[in-house]
Every structure is written in structure tokens, then in C-alpha cells.
């Protein structure tokens, strides 16, 4: 399907999970497609990076549930920081392990998973809805991490077939399979759609991460994770990320950045990225 067809399925008020990790293999072309719509009041569930920053800046976010929001080589996304410091978004800040427990619970369709992480910390204060659960076997009490169930999940992988069988070729699957299972609908973008019989030409069985029964639509988006990393296809574009982070701190610079990169379609974005490299 096309980026535009994908974007048309997203409605205001939805809960949207975004795969990847920090500034790594984020479905940035799908995020850019969302920026071009008029959806708003989204709840974003993400181990966040520039996906969260861009959506916050565009005024599309009501709440972010996260384990962190980081650009990896830059500790914090400046748009997210600005949104927090201006009070324009609500948050559910979790310990990273709690966040993963929430994904696992959602993928399993159970309402919570017990975890030790969070006990006695201010994560419980910052999330007044969080409850603990008493073990039926002994006297232990754990945090009952609620399922992070989502309407839609967006993930980006190196390869997929047209049916939605997704493949990662880098060293880390992150949690993209859990996102796919935790959502009512999952949209998978990839560097290249290949015939099913070619998936294992150059990669082991273990690289087949996502199964088609969890995937609603496949979108071929070459360099679709840019400027985050998508190894081994490409590394993070550190120079571009530095430009993004610097521009985000200054309104005039941001206006220029947005005009150059974000006001057209994906083809214009990719062409602007190419022109910049020369």
C-alpha cells in the first residue's frame, strides 16, 4: 500500500505504538506521513526518539507512554523536552523494563504482568493509575504493569514480503514483533519488498521476526528509517540528526528545516536529503 493510503487509516484520538528504539530503525517515513495529515490527540507508545519529537512538535500528541525519549548520540529529543517543559503533553513515564512488560502483556491479551521494577520508586507517583498485585503463592507484592494495548502499531524492517512477513537484518530485533502483536492493526514499512522465496537467500531463519497474521499493510519505503539507523542497510545519519536537534532549539532555524524537509511528500524529503549530501 502507499504511504497516503496508510495515513488515511489513522484517526484522531487513536493510540499508536511506534517500534524501533531511540534513534534506531524507527518507521520515520510512516511518521512523516502522519505529520502531513490533520490527525491529533494521539496517544503515542514508544521507546522514543525523533518519532516522538516530530509528532509532539506537530501538535499531534495528547499523551506519550515511554520508557525514554532519546536520540542516542544526543541524550534527549529537543522537541520532546520543549513539550514537557511547556506542559503541552501528558505523560506516562515508565522504567524501560516495565514498558517491555506492558508490551508483552498487550501482545498476550492479558491486562497486566507483574514486575519488580517500579516498586518504591516515583514511577508509581508519576502514574497514579498504576496498581500493585499480591502474589497468591507467597507474601510478595509486585507492580501490576498494565498492558500497553494499541489501536495501531507502526514498525520498520529491512525486508518483508508483500503478505507482511517481516525480516530484520541487523543485530537487534528491538521489540517490533511485540508491537505487531500488541496492536489491533500493524503497518510494516520496509527498505524493500522481496518475493517470499528470496527472504532466506542471504539471511538465517532467525531473521524472520514478524508474521503476516499480525500485519495489516506493507509499505515499501526505501531509506524509510532515515535519519535513524537501519543497519546493515545504513547507519544513523548523525550529521542530519545534529541539524535536526540544533534546528529544533531555535524557531527560525526550525521553520527553515521544516520547510526544506517536512512540507512535501516522502519523495521530496528523500530528494532534499540527497541534495544536502552534495
Amino acid at each position, binding site marked *: 500500500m502507499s504511504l497516503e493510503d496508510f495515513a488515511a487509516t489513522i484517526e484522531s484520538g487513536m493510540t499508536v505504538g511506534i517500534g524501533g528504539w531511540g534513534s534506531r530503525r524507527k518507521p520515520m517515513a510512516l511518521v512523516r506521513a502522519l505529520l502531513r495529515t490533520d490527525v491529533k490527540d494521539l496517544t503515542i507508545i514508544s521507546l522514543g526518539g525523533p518519532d516522538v519529537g516530530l509528532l509532539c512538535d506537530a501538535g499531534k500528541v495528547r499523551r506519550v507512554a515511554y520508557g525514554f525519549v532519546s536520540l542516542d548520540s544526543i541524550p534527549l529529543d529537543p522537541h520532546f523536552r520543549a513539550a514537557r517543559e511547556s506542559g503541552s503533553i501528558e505523560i506516562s513515564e515508565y*522504567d524501560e523494563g516495565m514498558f517491555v512488560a506492558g508490551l508483552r502483556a498487550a501482545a498476550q491479551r492479558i491486562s497486566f504482568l507483574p514486575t519488580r521494577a517500579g516498586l518504591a*520508586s*516515583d*514511577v508509581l507517583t508519576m502514574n497514579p493509575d498504576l496498581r500493585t498485585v499480591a502474589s497468591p503463592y507467597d507474601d510478595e507484592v509486585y507492580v501490576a504493569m498494565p498492558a500497553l494495548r494499541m489501536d495501531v502499531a507502526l514498525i520498520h524492517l529491512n525486508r518483508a514480503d508483500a503478505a507482511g512477513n517481516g525480516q530484520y537484518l541487523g543485530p537487534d530485533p528491538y521489540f517490533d514483533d511485540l508491537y505487531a502483536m500488541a496492536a489491533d492493526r500493524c503497518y510494516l514499512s520496509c527498505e524493500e519488498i522481496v518475493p517470499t522465496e528470496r527472504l532466506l537467500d542471504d539471511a538465517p531463519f532467525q531473521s524472520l521476526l514478524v508474521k503476516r497474521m499480525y500485519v495489516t499493510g506493507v509499505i515499501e519505503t526505501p531509506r524509510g528509517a532515515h535519519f535513524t539507523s537501519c543497519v546493515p542497510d545504513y547507519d544513523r545519519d548523525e550529521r542530519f540528526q545534529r541539524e535536526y536537534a540544533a534546528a529544533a532549539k531555535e524557531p527560525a532555524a526550525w521553520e527553515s528545516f521544516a520547510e526544506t524537509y517536512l512540507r512535501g511528500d516522502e519523495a521530496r524529503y528523500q530528494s532534499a536529503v540527497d541534495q544536502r549530501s552534495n
Partner: protein
Amino acid sequence: MTMQCTRAEVCVVAASDSWRGAGEVLAHAVGAVPAISVRLARLTHSPDLVLSDGEAFFMSDPPPLGKTAAEAGTVEAWTPYREVFDIVQSGRRRSMMGASQLDRYGNQNISCIGDWRRPARQLIGVRGAPGNTVNHRTNYWVPKHSPRVFVEQVDVVSGVGNDRARAAGGAAARFHDLGVVITELAVFDYGPDGALRIRSVHPGVTVEEVRHATGFAVDASTATETRMPTAEELRLIREVIDPMGLRAREVPG
């Protein structure tokens, strides 16, 4: 004969000593001095320590500072992020984390400054601190010791302190284990009441200086002087582990 060495090298060796007796566990080290210290520990007194490249691999030789498995070294295990949280919960791990704020009972904040609903300064978030502190030994490294870091009360409890763990009891306290806090001035541990106390001050630093830089009263009745690096430790730090001198960027002078 007096050995010439920098404050950063004293800190590296103090941090290295904090890994003694850790056994065969994953060493999680945030910051240059902790990262150097764990490699030093591995090459000297703690050969069983497990070291990661900071990404998805464990390395059978100490990886070069700041390099991933793809760039150098021998991979001994595959550990994508999802497995890190399993390791945390297994307890076979020990952390040395940073702290934007730290109080007398070792409550640590890296989340934000001010009211979390609308922070004056958003920081990196609680990250893994809540899970780390209730699952395995956690130490802290503070390269700029000041009353802004050592505060009466942290704004957000990210890492759980001794008072909070004891008050909660049960699963919160079962594996809670704060070890030491190392700064560019001193090494702290925790007294029987769970409060920070000065274990040692670094050569050239006075107890008064440490007290002055600490935003709450701190016991110094058993304070000694931090030991100097050995000649072999200095050689390993300077020639093998950190020839680029990253330690001096974290602790100048």
C-alpha cells in the same frame, strides 16, 4: 617514591575496586570513568566479569572504549535489548549509573528537575533505574560533586534509596543493594542507618571540601584516604584501556 597520577586515574581505580567480588555478572557502566574501571577490573582482580559492547553483544575480551562489536573484539554472546531486561530480573548484573540528584539515603534522580507534571528541566527519564535498584547491586558515579547533585530531597525517585526500600519491604527490598557512590572528590558508602557516609577522600582532598560540596550533613568519622593506583594499573589505564585519554574529559586536572 611517589607515583604521579591524575585525579581521574584515582577515580578509575576507586571505581575498579567497586567491582571486586562481583563474580560472573554483567557489568553495566555509564560514563567514561565507570567504563574504564570495569575494563581495569576485568584485566586485574575480576576476570569473570561479563562485558557488553553497549549494543547487542557480550565481548570475550574487554572491548576498546567507545567501540562496538562490529568494530573490534570477539563476540561471546548475543544480547539484544529485550534480553537485557531478563538479565536485570535474573540479578546477574551490577550497575554503576550516573545521578543528576542523589540524597542522603541514595535515592537517585535522572528523570527531571522540578515538578514532574511540568518540569523546569526535562532530563533523560527514569530509564532503567527503578528496575536496576530493586534487582541488583547499584553503585553511582558523580564526576562533578556539588550541592546541586547531593540534595536533601531528590525531585523524582528514579533509583530507589535505602529508606524507600526499607519502608516498602518485601519484593522492593529483597534484592535492593546500594554499594558505593564515587565522585571526583571522595568515595561514599552507606552506614547501618542506610545514610551516605564518607568512606575515603581522594589524595589532596579534605573532608571539609567534601562536606562543603554535599548538600546534607554526612558522617566522616571513619573516613580514610582513597588508595593510589599501582604502577600496573596506571600502565593498563594509559596504554591499554584509555590511550585517547577520555577519562580526562570527565575529570579534568
